[in-house]
């Protein structure tokens, strides 16, 4: 057997292993995005500014704190007069970014960033 054939054989074996194995692996990050987005919207419905400030990205929270003394004060001042029932639909995501769209609406979405190992809200029509 020549070296080339040996290398080919080893390569094929590795390729087979790589393809066959790991069938049970499933990425649950999409569920995490949905959990955080739901908590974010539920907090608006419950007028829970602390939870909203907890799940948004730290730079956003700092910006809000700079404008109103604390992040919670800023968020409380922007609560809508009545809560809106929202159902999520399409999810676009990469390793570190996600956009969870409101069902049936191509423009409204909650944008999220994975910071360290937690998904945090970076963008939403609710944040003003």
């Amino acid at each position, binding site marked *: 057997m020549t070296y080339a054939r040996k290398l080919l054989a080893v390569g094929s074996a590795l390729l087979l292993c*790589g393809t066959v194995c*790991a069938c049970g692996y499933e990425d*649950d*990050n999409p*569920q995490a995005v949905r*959990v*955080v987005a739901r908590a974010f919207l539920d907090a608006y419905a419950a007028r829970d500014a602390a939870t909203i400030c907890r799940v948004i990205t730290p730079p956003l929270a700092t910006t809000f704190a700079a404008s109103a003394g604390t992040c919670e004060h800023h968020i409380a001042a922007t609560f809508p007069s009545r809560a809106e029932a929202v159902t999520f639909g399409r999810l676009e995501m990469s390793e570190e970014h996600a956009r969870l769209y409101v069902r049936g609406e191509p423009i409204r979405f909650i944008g999220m960033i994975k910071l360290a*190992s*937690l998904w945090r809200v970076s963008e939403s029509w609710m944040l003003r």
Partner: protein
Amino acid sequence: MLAPLLGVLVLRAPLINALPNNDTWFYSGYGWALAHHIEIFGWFYYADRFTATLPIALSTGALGPVAGYLVLRCLLLVGTGGVLYICARRFTSRFVAATGVCLLAMNPFYMRLVLWDYTTFIALPCTIAGAAVWYLGTRRTAMLITAIVSGALLGAAIYANPLSGLVLPALFAVETVAACREGRRAVVLLLTRALAALLGALLVFVAGYLGYRAYLGSFPIANMYKATLDFLRSNNQLAAPFQHPPGVWLKTEPRIYGPVLVCVGIVVVLGRSLLQNTPRSRVALFALAYTAVFWLYRFTITSSVIETWWAYSMTAATSAFALPAILDELVGRSRSRERLVLAAALVATGGADLLVRSDHNIALSVFNYLRTHPYPLLLLLIACCSAALASALVRRAGIRITALVAFLALVAVLTLTPAGYVGTGQTGEFSPYGEAEVDGYQAAYDMTRLIASRDRPQSRVLLWDSLYGLAAISWANLPHQDGGIENVEAPIAITQLTPAEIELLLYPTTTRVLVLSQSTTELASTVPSLRRIGLRPRIEVAGAWADGALYYAVIDLGKPK
């Protein structure tokens, strides 16, 4: 075969050296729970270092964490020693080659960098083996196959730790000069071999990708190098905080002079024969160039490769190739005393290692004195250079051998100096924790597997501990990446909860905590603390690891599902 055992014995080296260091645990964690870590923490540059994580994953999968660790170290140490022996045999006798392998095993820089899970455990042996295999192909036979294998090994070293790339300028500078001196045909041959080496490195990359696919399923191949490229791009930002003024470490870090003195030894002992185009001179020049590249790199690019011991210890590769060349020259001058010279070399290094490592307090006092008194240090360096000079120039064999003993003993002593900067204050930077290291390593594996079995992105299990003592194992779950609730910069006892910790506990995806403590009272105090912030904690699992020295409990926070 027995050289690593000899090294471990004379250095009194703990087989695992993980508890005093944080970074080593990242690679243990990725190796033990690759799919979990990538899903939760993503493609950090730690994950890109597949030539470190995959061997950990494979050896642990086959034999369990501790046995897998030990067998992997045996294979690496014996394999590297074997290849170095074959390389040295190209230009010297089997006794000199075997002595060279033993001296490498007795080098604390080398043993320390292999005996943990930080990337250097692959990077350093692969650098030495890669260069050794390269030099096996400088004869007409097997030129291409040795180049491919060498490229694969050097590639493995560079994938494990990009700093290992410093071997390339050293190796290829020496080889280019040698080829230019031989003529056009040699230059073409060198280019062909360099391309073959590149092919070897690519093959390792493909094998690594397929290995990761076996654990993760399909993923973009760019994930395997993107974070490393970002890491290299931000080199200045990352390296700058570790930089220390040369004026300080030149005076206070005697350990940095070990490889420099070996380089002095090469020049002094080999003299003009260094300029010949022989296998020995090429190997010796490579050894010289390798340490020189480190110093050049330190002063031309923002880096801390000399003052940080875990980076600078890579220069063990210099001693690996230099000492057989030096001994070959000295033995050649008095062939009748070959065994005496070699025995003297072994006794000098082994004796110095044993002496320093056995009487820790006296050694530390001497090292502290040297660190705070630059002139005695300077005198010691001059004495060492003089010994090298005497071993090369004096005609009387007795004096020459005595000078060699002094030279090697002084190099060994200096190499064992504890690092003053980001060090643990231990000779050779070996762990002071003894057998607790083995228990800690097993506990870290058990902890990682427990977390991996319950921790999901939408229902996280976060660690809660003080990061001190045995709880340092929690670095395997990346507490600095929200793998834990504690502030890694200023961890506090778990009897209290800081506002930042409460924020993480109340985060929507946090459903459980894994508490680690060496005290059951402290562990029990966590439940009332959680109740005080409005949670309804319920202990799911509790027990002890590390032979009963570390208690743990998985606590469900009782949040509505």
